[in-house]
C-alpha cells in the first residue's frame, strides 16, 4: 500500500512546490530589472553557500553545526527519497544512505528544537515554532518508511491488514513533513528561506562580496549610484515594485534569525527601527497584505498589525494619508545610522542599508521630506559645499599659523591630505593639527586642497540626496584630477569610504588611506619614534566606516601598540563594534528613542574599565565626547601619536635614505 501512496504524495508535493515556486518568482519579477549574470550566479551558488554563507553562520558554532546536520541531511534525504520512494529504486545502498541522511537531519532537528525551548528574543516565533516538529516529522517518517528497503524490517510488516493504523500514522507524518519541506518552501512557510536564499545567493546584487577559488570575497560597501541622466528612472524606491527584482528576492530570503536586530544600535536605543522587521515589511509589501502575522520584535513603540502595503502602493504614506496607513513610517527609515552591523551579521547576506537608502532617496528627492535639520543641511551643502553653511573660503582658517602646503602651489606631492568637513569643527581641528604635526615629524611630502576641497558628499548621499552627492563628487573629482599624488590620507573614515569606494563609479579612482593606516606604515618604516605610554588604560572604538565598511581593524590597534598601549577591548569591538550614533545623518534627522546611541557606547567603554577611548573619526569623537558624565576621555589616534612623538636625533640617516625610495614611485605616477 505504501508503495503506491508514497510516489503519489511525493510527486504531488513536488508539483505543488513547482507551482509555488513559479508564483514566488512572479512576485520577485515585479521588481525592476537588474544586471545579473544568471548562469554565472547559479554556477557560483554552491561555493557561495558552502563557503561564504557558512562563514557568517559559523560565528555561532552551535547553530552552524545544527544547520549543517539539518540542511545537509534534508537535501540528501529529499533527493534520495525521490529516487527511492518516488521512483521506486529500492537499492539497499540508496536506502542505507537515505537512512543516514534522515538520521542526521533528525539529530539536527533535535538541536533546532532545543533552541526553540527558550528562544532568545531576537528569534521570530509564530510558524517558526512548529519548524522543529516539522523537521522531525519529515526525518522520522522518512527513516521509518526506508527501513524496509534495507531489509531491517520485514517487508510484510506494513502490508498486513492489522498494520493499517501504523500506515495511516506514517502517511500522515510523511504528508506533514512533505507539506512543510516541499510545499511550504515555495508557498511562504519558514522553509522559504532555503529556496529564496539559494537563489538570492546566486543572483546577489553585490557578487563582489563572495569569495572565488582565487580568493577575494572582499567587502562591497559603497552605495550604488542612481542614474540621474535618465529622467524616466525612478529616483529611489517609492513602492516595493521599485526595488530591483533581486533585492525583492533578497528580502524573501530572510530566515528571521534576528541577528541583525541584536546588532542594531537604533533598536537598542528604542528608536522605531528593527532591521529584521523592516525586511519582513518589504516581504509583506511585495506580496501584499498586513504585517499582522509578523511574530518577532516590533519597531519600538509601533504595534504590529497597523501597517499594510501592496507591491504598487507607496511604502511610506504620502503626507495626505494619516501616519500608519502604509507599510513603513518615515521615522523608521530615518532612524538608521547606516552602521552596517545588520549587514555584517546577516547570514543570508541581505543588504539592509541599500534598501533603507533607496527608500530615503525617494523621500528626499521626490517628496522633499528629509526630517528635522535635514533640509537645512542639504541646502547648506548645495549653497556652500559644507554641512554647516560656513563660508567655503574659511576652510583653512584653523590652520592659519601652520602654513600648510597647498596642492595649487605644489601640483604634485606624495600624499594629499584630505581634511574633510571637520575643518570647521573646533574639536576636530585639534585632531587635524595633531595629524599635521605627525606628518611633519615623519617628513611626509604632503599638501592640502585648502579652499578647493568640498564636502565629500557622504551625508548628502546617506540622507538620500543623490543629486547633491553626485554634484559634490563630480566637482571634487574634477579638482583632484588637476593634481598628481600617490595617495589620499584622511582622518575622516566617511571621506575615506566615499573617496575610496563610491567615487570610483563616477570616475574618480584613488588610493585612499585612513590616517591610522598611514601612521602605522610610517612607524613600520621607522619614520616615527614614540616615547613610552604613561597614561592609564585605553580602549579603542572601531568607527563603522573604517571597520565594517573598509575592513581596517588592525592598523589602529597596531598604532596603539606601537605607542606602548595595551588595549582593553570592549565586548563589542572589531567587526561587531557598536556604532557611535553619528553615521548616516542620524544626528541630523535625530529620531527620538528611549536612550541615545552614544550613551550606550560610552557605557560599553565604561564596562571595559578604560580611562581613555581612542577613536579615529571626527563623528565618533563628537558623538562620544558629547556624552555627559563619563569617566573616560575621548582622544583621536592622531592626538595620541602627536603627544608621544620623540624628535629623531638630527642627522639620522633613515630620513634621507628613504627619500630616494619614495621619489621614483612619484615619477611612476607622472608617466
Amino acid at each position, binding site marked *: 500500500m505504501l508503495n503506491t501512496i508514497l510516489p503519489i504524495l511525493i510527486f504531488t508535493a513536488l508539483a505543488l512546490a513547482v507551482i509555488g515556486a513559479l508564483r514566488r518568482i512572479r512576485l520577485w519579477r515585479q521588481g525592476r530589472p537588474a544586471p545579473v549574470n544568471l548562469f554565472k550566479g547559479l554556477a557560483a551558488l554552491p561555493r557561495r553557500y558552502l563557503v561564504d554563507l557558512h562563514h557568517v553562520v559559523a560565528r555561532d558554532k552551535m547553530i552552524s553545526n545544527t544547520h549543517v546536520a539539518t540542511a545537509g541531511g534534508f537535501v540528501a534525504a529529499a533527493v534520495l527519497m525521490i529516487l527511492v520512494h518516488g521512483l521506486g529504486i529500492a537499492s539497499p545502498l540508496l536506502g542505507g544512505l537515505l537512512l543516514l541522511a534522515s538520521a542526521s537531519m533528525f539529530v539536527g532537528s533535535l538541536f533546532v528544537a532545543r533552541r526553540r525551548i527558550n528562544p532568545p528574543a531576537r528569534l521570530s516565533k509564530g510558524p517558526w515554532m512548529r519548524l522543529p516538529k516539522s523537521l522531525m516529522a519529515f526525518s522520522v517518517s522518512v527513516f521509518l518508511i526506508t527501513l524496509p528497503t534495507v531489509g531491517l524490517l520485514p517487508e510484510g510488516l506494513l502490508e498486513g491488514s492489522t498494520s493499517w493504523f501504523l500506515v495511516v500514522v506514517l502517511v500522515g507524518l510523511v504528508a506533514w513533513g512533505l507539506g512543510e519541506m516541499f510545499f511550504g518552501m515555495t508557498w511562504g512557510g519558514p522553509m522559504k528561506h532555503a529556496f529564496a536564499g539559494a537563489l538570492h545567493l546566486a543572483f546577489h546584487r553585490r557578487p563582489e562580496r563572495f569569495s572565488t577559488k582565487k580568493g577575494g570575497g572582499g567587502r562591497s560597501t559603497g552605495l550604488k549610484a542612481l542614474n540621474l541622466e535618465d529622467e524616466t528612472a525612478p529616483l529611489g524606491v517609492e513602492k516595493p515594485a521599485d526595488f530591483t527584482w533581486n533585492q525583492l528576492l533578497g528580502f524573501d530570503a530572510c530566515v528571521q534569525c534576528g541577528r541583525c536586530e541584536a546588532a542594531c544600535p537604533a533598536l537598542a536605543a528604542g528608536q522605531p527601527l528593527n532591521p529584521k522587521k523592516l525586511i519582513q515589511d518589504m516581504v509583506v509589501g511585495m506580496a501584499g497584505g498586513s504585517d499582522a502575522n509578523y511574530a518577532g520584535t516590533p519597531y519600538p513603540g509601533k504595534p504590529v498589525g497597523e501597517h499594510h502595503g501592496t507591491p504598487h502602493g507607496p511604502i511610506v504614506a504620502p503626507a495626505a494619508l494619516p501616519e500608519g496607513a502604509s507599510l513603513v513610517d518615515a521615522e523608521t527609515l530615518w532612524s538608521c545610522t547606516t552602521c552596517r552591523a545588520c549587514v555584517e551579521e546577516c547570514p543570508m547576506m541581505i543588504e539592509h542599508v541599500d534598501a533603507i537608502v533607496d527608500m530615503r532617496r525617494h523621500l*528626499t528627492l521626490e517628496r*522633499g*521630506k528629509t526630517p528635522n535639520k535635514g533640509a537645512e543641511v542639504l541646502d547648506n551643502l548645495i549653497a556652500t559645499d559644507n554641512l554647516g553653511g560656513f563660508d567655503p573660503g574659511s576652510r583653512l582658517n584653523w590652520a592659519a599659523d601652520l602654513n600648510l602646503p597647498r596642492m595649487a602651489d605644489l601640483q604634485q606631492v606624495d600624499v594629499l591630505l584630505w581634511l574633510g568637513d571637520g575643518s570647521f569643527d573646533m574639536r576636530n581641528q585639534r585632531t587635524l593639527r595633531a595629524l599635521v604635526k605627525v606628518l611633519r615629524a615623519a617628513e611626509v611630502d604632503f599638501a592640502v586642497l585648502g579652499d578647493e576641497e568640498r564636502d565629500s558628499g557622504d551625508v548628502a548621499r546617506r540622507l538620500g540626496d543623490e543629486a547633491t552627492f553626485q554634484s559634490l563628487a563630480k566637482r571634487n573629482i574634477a579638482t583632484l584630477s588637476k593634481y598628481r599624488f600617490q595617495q589620499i590620507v584622511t582622518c575622516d573614515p566617511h571621506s575615506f569610504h566615499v573617496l575610496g569606494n563610491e567615487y570610483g563609479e563616477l570616475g574618480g579612482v584613488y588610493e585612499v588611506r585612513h590616517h591610522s593606516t598611514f601612521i602605522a606604515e610610517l612607524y613600520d618604516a621607522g619614520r616615527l619614534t614614540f616615547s613610552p605610554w604613561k597614561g592609564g588604560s585605553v580602549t579603542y572604538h572601531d568607527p563603522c566606516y573604517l571597520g565594517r565598511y573598509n575592513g581596517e581593524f588592525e592598523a589602529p590597534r597596531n598604532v596603539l601598540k606601537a605607542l606602548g598601549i595595551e588595549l582593553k577591548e570592549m565586548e563589542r569591538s572589531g567587526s561587531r563594534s557598536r556604532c557611535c550614533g553619528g553615521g548616516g545623518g542620524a544626528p541630523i534627522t535625530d529620531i527620538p528613542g528611549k536612550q541615545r546611541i552614544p550613551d550606550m557606547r560610552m557605557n560599553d567603554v565604561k564596562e571595559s574599565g578604560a580611562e581613555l577611548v581612542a577613536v579615529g573619526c571626527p563623528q565618533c569623537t563628537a558623538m562620544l565626547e558629547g556624552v555627559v558624565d563619563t569617566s573616560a576621555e575621548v582622544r583621536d589616534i592622531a592626538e595620541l601619536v602627536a603627544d608621544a612623538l620623540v624628535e629623531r636625533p638630527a642627522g639620522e640617516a633613515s630620513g634621507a635614505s628613504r627619500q630616494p625610495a619614495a621619489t621614483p614611485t612619484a615619477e611612476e605616477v607622472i608617466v
Partner: protein
Amino acid sequence: MPHNVNTLNDAELSVAVLVSVGRHPLTGRARRADHDARAVEMALSLGDASVQLMHAGDGGEACGDAMRGYLGMGISRVKRINQDPDADVVPALANILRFAAPQLVLTGTRAETGEGSGLVPYLLAETLGWTVVSGLAEIESIEQGVATVLQALPRGKRRRLKVRLPAIATVDSSAPAARQSAFGPARRGELADCACASVTDELQTQWRVQPARKRPKRLKIVKSASARDRFKAAAAKADSGGGQLLNDVTPEQGAEAIFTLLKEEGVLR
C-alpha cells in the same frame, strides 16, 4: 476690476506668487530667494487654491537654477517673463497680473539680487489699484473676497487685518519657513517662457553699482557691575526707547516726523 469678488469661494481662489532670483549671502550662488520661497509656502498652505508662480527677469543661467529651487517645492510650472537685463520689471508684471487676474498676489518683501528696493509690490499695487499689505505672517481665512490675515509687527507682535481682495501681500522672515526643495519635482517642473516687451529702467542705467560695505553696528553700552546685569543686558532685545506713536496725522505731519527722526539719527545730514 475683472471679478466680482463677492461670489468667490475658496475653491476658486487663485493666487499668484512673484518669485525672484535669490543669492546666497556667503557664496553668491543662485538659489530660491528666502522671502519669495516663504511666499510660495504660504500660497501652498492655502489648501486648494490654484497657485501660479511668475518671474520677470533676464532668464540667465542663475535664473534657471533659482526657478528650479521653487519648482522643487512641488510646483509644476513657473511662468517666466523674459526681459532685457536693464528692464524695469514692474510694467511687465503689472501687465501679466492684469491679464491673469489672481485674487491674491504674494511675494517676498525684497529681492536678494538686483535693486532689492522692496518697492515692486507697492508700484504694482499703485499701477493696478489694489491693496497692498506688508509683512504677512499668516493667512487665516479667505471668505467672500475678504482675506483675514495676521501681519507681523516688530518683536513678535501680530495684528489681524481684513483685506479686500484683490490684494498684493509681502512676506518676510516672520512667515513659516519654506518647505524643502526636492530634486525630482525641480527637474520635472516646467519653465514656461513668454516674451513681453521690455521697458528700460532709465534711472537704473545711470547708477553705479558697487558691493555694499558692512554697516557698522551700534554698540550697546553696558554699565553694570554684576554678571546678572550684564547677562540681562546681553539678552535684552534691542530697545527703541524713544519711540513715538502718531495717530490720525496728516501725511505732511507724518513725513515731517520721519524727516526729523532721520536727521536726529544722522541718516540725513
